């Protein structure tokens, strides 16, 4: 198992005419990592991937693969293999010819190609299906053929552009695990693009969250979820309740936010912002639905929120309770289903509590629009 090849993006800016698709991106991807770019549609993910694979040159900055500057090196000369959003299998070639295409280009004999293709077909659990045409395969099978075709070239870096987006939910979840396993087995660097945060969080060693061409945060999935460094990341990744207000006091890594509608609330300051927030600043505080619970009568007021119930939904494994929130947005609380009939009644005034360690505060900023 190889240790993998590192990919570094140094101050990459990519412009199309007047439009800046990617702004000053700095990313260091360790060799052998599963690295994801996560962001809403049109934020520049594919553009970054095309710069790594060599289909377009960054307007500024450098792409380094294994420490080597890739400027002037075409896509056919880079040690990368790209899996396209729509897979782009060759419809007129048999499955095995598709898989061994990179060897055909290199001039390998038909026997060699067939042998390697069969090995890869076994690896993706499609043994014996090499003589079919791509159109005779199911969506998930095509998916795996595209992966095998990319791996056949023995790339140092595999680039995947939302390869699972066309699959249905069940298959997508299955393919996530499978992709992760393939990555561990071959040990090469995977750069994965998705707008599905579940995908990014389950599979990746590290995730870069992008917003309109700017990388907002690069971190492990855990940190992205628990310690978002901007309101965009907090609201884009997973569900989150936002409370707007001003910083009332700061005590080390904790702050009291005087919120617009729920009084003074105690929160942790997100690690990236510790020491950077001032009393009186506009702030946002985020609490996840699963971090809220019904408050006992003696709960401390600085970690208690009171609000009227608007609605309740039964989700199977949990109940979602929606309460009247700040600025037209509803507060969502998620309560595990432990056999209750219901949690609340419409219009009821509920008190909710949370652990201050489960709340994160940061300077106010733009939220992800849903």
């Amino acid at each position, binding site marked *: 198992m190889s240790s993998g090849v590192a990919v570094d993006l140094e101050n990459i800016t990519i412009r199309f005419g007047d439009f800046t698709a990617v702004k000053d991106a700095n990313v260091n991807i360790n060799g052998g990592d599963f690295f994801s770019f996560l962001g809403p549609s049109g934020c520049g993910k594919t553009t970054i991937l095309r710069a790594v694979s060599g289909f377009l040159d960054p307007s500024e900055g450098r792409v380094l693969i294994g420490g080597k500057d890739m400027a002037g090196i075409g896509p056919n000369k880079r040690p990368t293999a790209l899996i396209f959003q729509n897979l*782009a299998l060759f419809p*007129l070639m048999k499955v095995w010819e598709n898989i061994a295409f990179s060897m055909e280009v290199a001039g390998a004999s038909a026997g060699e190609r067939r042998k390697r293709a069969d090995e890869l077909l076994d690896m993706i659990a499609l043994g014996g299906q090499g003589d079919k045409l791509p159109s005779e395969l199911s969506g998930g099978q095509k998916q795996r053929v595209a992966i095998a075709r990319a791996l056949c070239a023995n790339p140092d870096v595999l680039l995947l552009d939302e390869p699972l987006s066309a699959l249905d939910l069940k298959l997508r979840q299955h393919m996530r695990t499978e992709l992760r396993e393939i990555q561990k087995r071959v040990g090469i660097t995977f750069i994965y693009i998705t707008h599905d945060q579940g995908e990014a969080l389950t599979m990746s060693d590290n995730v870069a969250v992008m917003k309109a061409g700017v990388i907002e945060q690069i971190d492990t999935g855990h940190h992205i979820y628990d310690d978002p460094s901007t309101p965009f990341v907090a609201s884009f990744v997973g569900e989150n309740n936002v409370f707007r207000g001003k910083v009332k006091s700061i005590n080390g890594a904790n702050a009291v936010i005087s919120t617009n509608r729920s009084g003074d609330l105690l929160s942790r300051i997100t690690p990236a912002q510790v020491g950077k927030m001032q009393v009186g600043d506009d702030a946002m505080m985020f609490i996840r639905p699963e971090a809220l619970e019904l408050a006992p009568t003696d709960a401390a007021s600085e970690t208690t929120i009171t609000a009227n119930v608007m609605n309740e939904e039964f989700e199977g494994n949990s109940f979602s309770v929606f309460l009247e929130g700040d600025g037209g947005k509803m507060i969502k609380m998620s309560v595990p289903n432990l056999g209750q009939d219901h949690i609340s009644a419409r219009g009821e005034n509920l008190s909710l509590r949370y652990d201050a360690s489960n709340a994160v505060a940061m300077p106010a900023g733009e939220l992800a629009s849903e």
Partner: protein
Amino acid sequence: MKKPMIFSQFFKNNGAVMGSALIGLVAFWLIFLIILPQLSMLDYSFRYNLPPAEVGGPKDVYTLSNYEHLIYGSDSSHQTYNTVDLKVFMRTILAAMLVTIFNIFLCYPLAYFLGQSKGSGFVRLLVVLLIIPYWINEILRAFALRIIFGDSGLLNEALMFLHLTSAPIDFIRQDIALYAGLGYAYILLMLFPMYNVIESLDRNQIEAARDMGASWLHIHRRIVIPYAKPGIVSGATMVFMLSAGALAAPQILGGPSSLWFTQLVYQWFNDSLNWQQGAAYAIVLLVSTIVIVLTVMRVFKVNMGDIGK
């Protein structure tokens, strides 16, 4: 099994009245405009050229003599061959093939360029510019080419101005004008089917191949050409058939000594008033071109169905 299903679906989509009307129109077109005239030509080709009084009389019987004339000429003992007409026939077929091949090589890069830079306004303008000359009558276009290729035509003037040649080149006598005219006459019929298939080729496939290290040559050989094959063959079929059957271009642009087979047919019908003989010649041309097209399709493994796409 498949046919009745197609028909019932057809009637479901169009309704009984509209469906019958459509089928009736297609049947009328096929029977009265294509099958019956061709059948009567076929019938003509097997009859003697008799004075009107004897038509339908005892002498009006079927014969192969019109076909024999193409092979043996007027020599009834079948000792010598009709080399003049046979040569014209071979030359027509070969030249039509050459024109077709030339058009394939000319149109492929153009179709690729047009098809893959889809959407841009510039490309649409180019396509329109290509079409506009075809609003002009075929005969006018041929005469225009004759002016360009003439002794004191544009081309010779230009060549002499550039001192590439000292005396005018006789493009007409050398048949260069004829081939250029034939190539030009039907080039759009080659370009558009090619352009249509190449336009529908997913760009990602080309990029994927490039990503896997393929050279441009390899990409065209393995990805683009196989994909474009139905378009190429359908274009080639039309250009070949129409060039072999062309009349205006050979009449106007052909050299004085070189005849096109269609000109022979025309002479039989029009000058010699021997429709029977003309029909036989026309049928030989038709059948030969069909056989050639079917053979080529067989060799390149293209189905009739692919061409209709």
